[in-house]
């Protein structure tokens, strides 16, 4: 039988494997909460529908309550006025939780260099994955999702 030669105790061996197993379970049950405010929503719908079949990655079931979701998809321009709402939504989600900035408006504010737009949602919340594009192609979104899965798999798992 293959044995971990990392020098850990038997107990350590057990926890590191448990961590991996929980990560594996979590990365394939990504329940998203789509926070859609603008045109990127169209591309999000395209990703979520049959052609690109996001269910292959275990992310096929959007939840429409943040309390039941693991990943917050922020899709579309966030204005100064809606930023407090977005933060409230984020605070309602249970840990562990992740945030995906979908589209260039959520990453940096995009071309909305004006008085009304938040220049990147990382002024409001911590962001795990940035998906650039105006709007991003579905392939880019799937790539972002795979990167998020990698991140979930490799992080320290809170239980």
């Amino acid at each position, binding site marked *: 039988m293959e044995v971990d030669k990392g020098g850990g105790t038997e107990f350590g061996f057990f926890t590191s494997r448990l961590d991996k197993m929980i990560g594996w379970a979590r990365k394939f049950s990504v329940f998203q909460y789509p926070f859609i405010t603008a045109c990127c929503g169209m591309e999000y719908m395209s990703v979520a529908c049959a052609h690109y079949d996001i269910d292959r990655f275990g992310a096929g079931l959007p939840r429409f309550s943040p309390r039941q979701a693991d990943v917050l998809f922020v899709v579309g321009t966030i204005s100064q006025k809606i930023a*407090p709402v977005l933060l409230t939504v984020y605070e309602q989600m249970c840990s562990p939780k992740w945030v995906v900035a979908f589209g260039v408006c959520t990453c940096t504010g995009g071309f909305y260099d004006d008085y009304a737009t938040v220049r990147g949602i990382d002024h409001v919340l911590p962001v795990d994955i940035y998906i650039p594009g105006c709007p991003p192609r579905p392939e880019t979104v799937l790539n972002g999702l795979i990167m998020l899965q990698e991140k979930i798999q490799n992080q320290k798992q809170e239980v």
Partner: protein
Amino acid sequence: MPEAEWSKTLKKIQEQFGDRVIEMHAQLGQDTVVVSKAAIFELARFLRDDPDLKYNYLMDLTAVDHFTRKPRFEVVYHFLSLEYNARVRVKVPVGESDPEVESLTPLWKIANWLERETWDMFGIKFKNHPDLRRLLLYPEFQGHPLRKDYPVTKRQPLVGPKDPQA
């Protein structure tokens, strides 16, 4: 433009408000009148109620910031006569030190929101307005963004979550 070519509207306005009209012209069939701010309320009522004009629809109310010109602002009104299918544009110059004009809310209910928007974006006040709050932006916003001296790169402070019960 010779007075003989003036439309019915311009002639009537000249008759009634001649002393308070600053300028009037008609370009491509669009009548435009520039009046002093003391006359706007009465002129609006006259345009609405006169049986030959019946400009009964306030289509638009906004402002222009000319910045280098004096007086700096111009409040612009567009009226439509549904009866005669005619339009007229009325402009009122407003200075920077006292940006205030009479509110048209007693004449048209829609003036309420249009004036609130103009206050929000240009910081022009409307006398006798029942509820002059910002319309599009939030109360914590500082400044008036459509003024030409509002810095393009200015960032507003973020507002935290609000208590829905409050």
